[in-house]
Structures are given as structure tokens and as C-alpha cells.
């Protein structure tokens, strides 16, 4: 456990995450810190805390739970100082996120067998940009990457992926707009085998989780992948826009129901996105959040870590690590 932590720390581009998240520190987070500068732990403080959490898109339900946990621990541990209560809250928030991240499976990359990642999500969450980031991420580990332009629906989605492919010097398997995504995936699987790519990242058309026939299409893609690699896609990555409100949870649930999401990426965590949706997702689904996207550059991707997430977003102390 300790060893693996050490190993992960060294191999991962930590700095990116720190810098990316640093940009997001805004009013809410300094306000949470300031909240505990007060002298007494009273009802008003708890009410204000609940409001601040809701403001950060943590959601009504989870906010209630967090405040409740805090109150009962404050009572049972006889905490009187707000500064200590703040630590308790921080712990509880991290624990909530860890609930999900502990389910994260170790990724096994086998030589000669492409590791297939299928990227899914609703329209406009930043799937294509996230794919570019993911490709760059794998490249940093010396893995060869190939992309499949499975979004044959949105106008110029293929071009957009091709531009990234060129920038990153990664081959992109694509058909015409309007082509059958299944055929693209089929070709991409063959190409990945033929060129012995380590990683194949498959883009899919954005779809609202309420469109059932489109959701069914994802299942079809999976079947096609499995003709080549038994356990493909080894990773099904749901991209959620960090500015999404409580609908993010509905999205995650419905995508999980139809395509068995293995990992979640929270994109657009730059600017003023609150990212509170991570807590609802962690609590309700237990699907691990694995990556976060923080900017528009291909390098703006980091692995998700509960502690960093909570510290950077909610306590403005991300550089403590």
C-alpha cells in the first residue's frame, strides 16, 4: 500500500493538478475556510456550511449528510474549536471520495493487446479534448496511442479529433461523417492490433443519457470490440462537465446502467467550476473518479486524488502535499 503510493507519486504528473486546481480556488472555498475562523460552533455556522456546500454543487442530500456527520463527530469527540471541526469536515469529505476511489481497478497493460478506452458522455462535456489529454498522458509513460473517431454524428467531430491527432502525432482511424461508428471501431481494433498500439482511445458521439437507442448503440460498440479483445473496452470512461449540477448524477447513473462505466473523468475543472458533483457521484455510484481535466492544453490532465481534490477545491490548501 505504502509502496504503491510512493510509486504513484513519483510517476504521476502531480504538479499539473496542483496548478490546474489552483486556478479554481474561488469564493466558496475561501469562505469555507473563513467559516471556521469563527469562535463558536453554532447552528448558524452549520447552516452557512450547508449553504456553501450546496453552492459548490455538492447537492442537497450529500451536504446534509456531511453536515450531519460533522455535527455528530463534534458532539462525540467533544470538539469545541472550530479549527478542529474544519479538520473533521475535511476528513469526512476525503472519506466520501475515497469510498469511490477504492473501487478503482489496477490498469493492466499487456504487450500486444491493445488497452481500449471508450469515452462516453453527454453532448458538450469535453469528450474530444479529454481524449487528447488522455492520449498525451499515456504518451508520457511511453505508450503508443491510437485514436478512433467514433463520433460520426456531430459535424466536424472527426476533424477536431484529427487536429489533435496531428498535434500529438497520434494516428486517428476515421471514416466519413454519418458512417457507422461500429465500422470505425472495427477498423480501429484491427489497426491497433496490426500496428501493435498499446492504447486505443475510442471517441463516441455525445448523447443525452435519456436517449435510449443511442445508449444501446454503445453496447453494440462494446460487442464489436470484444471480437478482437475479450475484455475490451478495458476502460469505459464517462466524462462529466465539472460545472454540471445534480443532473451529473443522473447522467452517471444512466450511463452506468447501459454501458458499465469503469472510470469517471471530471472535465473543465478550471475557471470557477465547483466540482461538487464528485461527492454525489462517489456516494451514490461508487464508480471511481480517475482523472480530472483542468484546462484546454493536452497536458491539462491529472489523476484524481481525493485529498488533493478536497484540499484544492474546498480548503484552498492544495499545495500542502
Amino acid at each position, binding site marked *: 500500500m505504502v509502496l504503491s503510493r510512493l510509486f504513484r507519486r513519483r510517476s504521476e504528473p502531480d504538479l499539473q493538478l496542483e496548478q490546474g486546481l489552483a486556478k479554481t480556488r474561488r469564493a466558496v472555498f475561501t469562505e469555507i475556510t473563513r467559516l471556521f475562523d469563527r469562535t463558536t460552533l453554532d447552528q448558524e455556522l452549520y447552516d452557512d456550511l450547508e*449553504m456553501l456546500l*450546496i*453552492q*459548490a*454543487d455538492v*447537492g*442537497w*442530500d450529500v451536504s446534509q449528510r456531511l453536515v450531519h456527520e460533522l455535527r455528530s463527530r463534534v458532539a462525540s469527540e467533544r470538539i469545541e474549536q472550530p479549527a478542529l471541526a474544519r479538520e473533521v469536515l475535511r476528513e469526512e469529505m476525503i472519506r466520501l471520495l475515497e469510498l469511490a476511489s477504492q473501487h478503482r481497478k489496477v490498469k493492466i497493460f499487456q504487450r500486444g493487446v491493445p488497452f481500449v478506452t471508450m469515452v462516453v458522455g*453527454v*453532448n*458538450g*462535456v*469535453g469528450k474530444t479534448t479529454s481524449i487528447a489529454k488522455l492520449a498525451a498522458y499515456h504518451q508520457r509513460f511511453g505508450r503508443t496511442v491510437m485514436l478512433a473517431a467514433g463520433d460520426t*454524428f*456531430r*459535424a*466536424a*467531430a472527426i*476533424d*477536431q479529433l*484529427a*487536429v*489533435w491527432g496531428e498535434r500529438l502525432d497520434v494516428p486517428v482511424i476515421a471514416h466519413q*461523417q454519418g458512417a457507422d461508428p461500429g465500422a470505425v471501431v472495427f477498423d480501429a481494433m484491427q489497426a491497433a492490433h496490426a500496428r501493435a498500439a498499446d492504447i486505443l482511445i475510442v471517441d463516441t458521439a455525445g448523447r*443525452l*443519457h*435519456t436517449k*435510449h437507442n443511442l445508449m444501446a448503440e454503445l453496447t453494440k460498440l462494446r460487442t464489436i470490440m470484444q471480437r478482437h479483445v475479450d475484455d475490451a473496452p478495458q476502460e469505459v470512461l464517462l466524462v462529466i*462537465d465539472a*460545472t*454540471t*449540477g*445534480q*443532473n*451529473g*448524477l*443522473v*447522467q452517471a*447513473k*444512466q450511463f452506468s*446502467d447501459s454501458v458499465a462505466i469503469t472510470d469517471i473523468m471530471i472535465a*473543465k475543472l*478550471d*475557471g*470557477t*467550476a*465547483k466540482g*461538487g*458533483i464528485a461527492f454525489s457521484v462517489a456516494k451514490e455510484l461508487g464508480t471511481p473518479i480517475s482523472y480530472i481535466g483542468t484546462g484546454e492544453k493536452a497536458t491539462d490532465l491529472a489523476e484524481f486524488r481525493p485529498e488533493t481534490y478536497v484540499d484544492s477545491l474546498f480548503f484552498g490548501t492544495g499545495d500542502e502535499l
Partner: protein
Amino acid sequence: MEMFESLSDRLNETFGRLSRKGRLTEQDVDEAMREVRRALLEADVNFKVVKDFVAALRERALGQDVLRSLTPAQTAIGIVNEELIKVLGSTVETLRAPDRPPQILMLVGLQGSGKTTHAAKLAIHLRKSGRNPLLVAADVYRPAAVNQLQALGRQVNVPVYEEGIDKSPIDIADRALTFARERGFNPVIVDTAGRLQIDDRLMQELVDIRDRIDPTEILLVADAMTGQEAVGVAETFHERLDVSGLILTKMDGDARGGAALSIRAVTGVPIKFIGTGEKLDALEPFYPERLAGRILGMGDVLSLIERAQEQTDEQEAQRLQTRMFKGQFNLEDFLEQLQKIKKMGPLTQLLDMIPGLGGQMRQANAQISDDDYKHIEAIIYSMTPDERRRPEIIGNRRRKRIARGSGRNPAEVNQLLAQFREMQKMMTQFGKMSKKGRLPAKLPFDF
């Protein structure tokens, strides 16, 4: 899957519990207000907006309306509905006319909100009313954004002005305008790059574009699924640019519309259009009362009616409504309606609009396909005219015969009959509601 219990259900529940104990007190109203608060927060309404809204609501509720009412839940729902509409704006907003042509529409917003798609949707929408639109590709940042607009332009047969990605968007927009004036294009729809409201340099660029082309409308395109930040985004765009209207996109998902309510409440900027699908004609004018219904979780009867109206004539609708409300609606009417429904759109989308059905049906959604239409049709076709008019005469033998005739099994016939009875019950309830004035008196509700 119904994630959130609807606000109207919750109010019904709360007041139902309360009314059993007789008199309602101020505390009871407070409890109900907590429910409203919770439901609004779960619908992503901004917390500040919720606070003000609930305060106003509480005052009205305590103004005896609710306390004295025999049906406190209904009265409360009515008040919430009215207050929601008040915030959402009570009129349907249209696009401003320019002082002199061309009309210039500038689309702004965050990345991924749907600007490019909605530029094309607007173009089609305006062309339908006989206009000659020009699309302008001023997003030089996102990879392939220009190609996307070009592709969309080709798809809908609207010309696209573009200068690639090496020129400044300010100059592009400016020259596009000259181009439009020379060739008589009107309106001119300018697609700008998505940007974060805190990106000062890019926000300034929008200000520069605006100052150069002096648009008739600056339309903020916002994702209906946005959380608490929706207000911050809209406020900043509005402060910098003086936004004149909103387009709420992705309203065909199951977002509860909290973002729309919040943005409208905080900025006062009217919502002019909503995007309701991936197809390029999926753009509708915004009707406040419909979104209010959606936030309350009462379905979107009005949109449903509108679609139904497209398929049916007024008199016919009146006749049916009367029959329905009186419980005289039979399987023959049902079959006739079914055939009209088929023309209205995919079944699942329609089901979502029916009050009270949305949540439950969504659960069964996976199994409901448009094939089911065919099965239902087959079953009804296998009935005698008498059976269609009086389904209650269908006993075991008749059921078996109908099943054989339609190639379905008797259980399916049963299921259809049970559903039909349920439906009849609902309809008579509607009839009663409309008499009490809970629904518009004239409801050309056609199935």
C-alpha cells in the same frame, strides 16, 4: 429511473400528511417550504434565488391562501406555479428587430454549451419565416470549429462566411457584415468561440467584437444542466456584454431547469429559445409556464398539446376533450389517437410530457419502443367494433380470440385493457381538475 421525487408529488405528500390532522398551522407551512427549498436545490436552482423565492412563497402561503384552503396541496402547488412563472417571465419573448438591416445575432457562452449547433438551428428557424440568413464562423480557437459550422451550413443549405483560423475574430465578424450587406443577407448569425467568463482576455475580445459590429441581439447560450455556477457565468457575461437574450440548450434531457430559473431571476435577461434535441430543427420558443411545470414535475402538458394540435383540428379536439373528461373515451378513440401520436414523435419523448407519467414510465423506458405501437394497434384491430366501444364486455373468451387474431398473447391484451382503464381514470380526474380551474379551462388535450 426517477432520481428526484417531483416537487408537486412532495407537496402533495406533505400536505396530505398534514391535512389529516385537521387545521394547518404556520409550522406546517414552514415544513412545506422546506420541501420546496429542497426540491429547488435539487433542481440546481441557485441557492440565493431559492432563498428569495421561498421567502416570497412563504409570505403568500401564510396570507391564508393555503391555510384556509380545503385542498392545501393544490393551492400550494398553484402558488408555487404562479411564483415560478413570475420569475421566469410571463411573456413569450421574440427576437428584437434591428434599426436597420441586417439583424445581427451574436452567440456567446462557455465551451460546450452548444453555440455552433444553435447558430445553425437559429438559421433554419429564421429561414422558415422567409429570411435569408448568413452564418459567420468567428470561433478560431476550438479545433475544427470552423469546419463544424461549414458542415452544418452545408447540411441546412445556409451559406457560411469564414476566413479560416488565422485572422482575428473581430475582423472576421466585421468583414462578414460588409459581405452580408453587399449580398443582402439578413440575419447575420455570428458564432463565437466558447470561453470561460473569468478569462479576461477572451471576454474583452467579445466586447471588441460587439463594439465593432453592434449586434441587434447578444444571445447567451447556456447548458440547462449547469449547476450553481450558472448564475456566475450569466452575471459575468451580462455585465461585460449586456446580454439581450438566453438560449437554454439540452432541454431535451432530464435537467430540471434550475439553471434557467436562476439565470432569469438573477440577470432579468429573457429566455428566448430552448434547444430540445440534436436535430437541427429542435429549437423552440420559450414558454415560461411549461418550464414552471417541469420544475414542479408536473410534466409538460402544454408542449404535448401543441404537438397534438398540429395533428388535429380544433373541433375534433373539443369533442374528444369532452368525451375524455366525461369518461366516454373508448378504444376506438384511442386507436384514432394512437395513429395521430405516431405522427407526433417518438413515444418515449411524448410519455415524458405527460404529468405524473414521466418518472414511472422512464423506469420502463428501456422496454417501450415504437414497435409497441404496432402491437397495440394489432390488438385493437382484432377487436369487434362493439368491443372497442365497450371494452368492459371483453371476457376470457373474447380475450383469447383477440390474442389469437393479433398474434399477441392474452396477457398483453389484459395489460392493454388495464392501462386503458387507468388512462380513463386519469382523464376524468383531469376533467374534474379543469372544472376547478386548476388547468386551463379549455384544454384541447387530445388523448
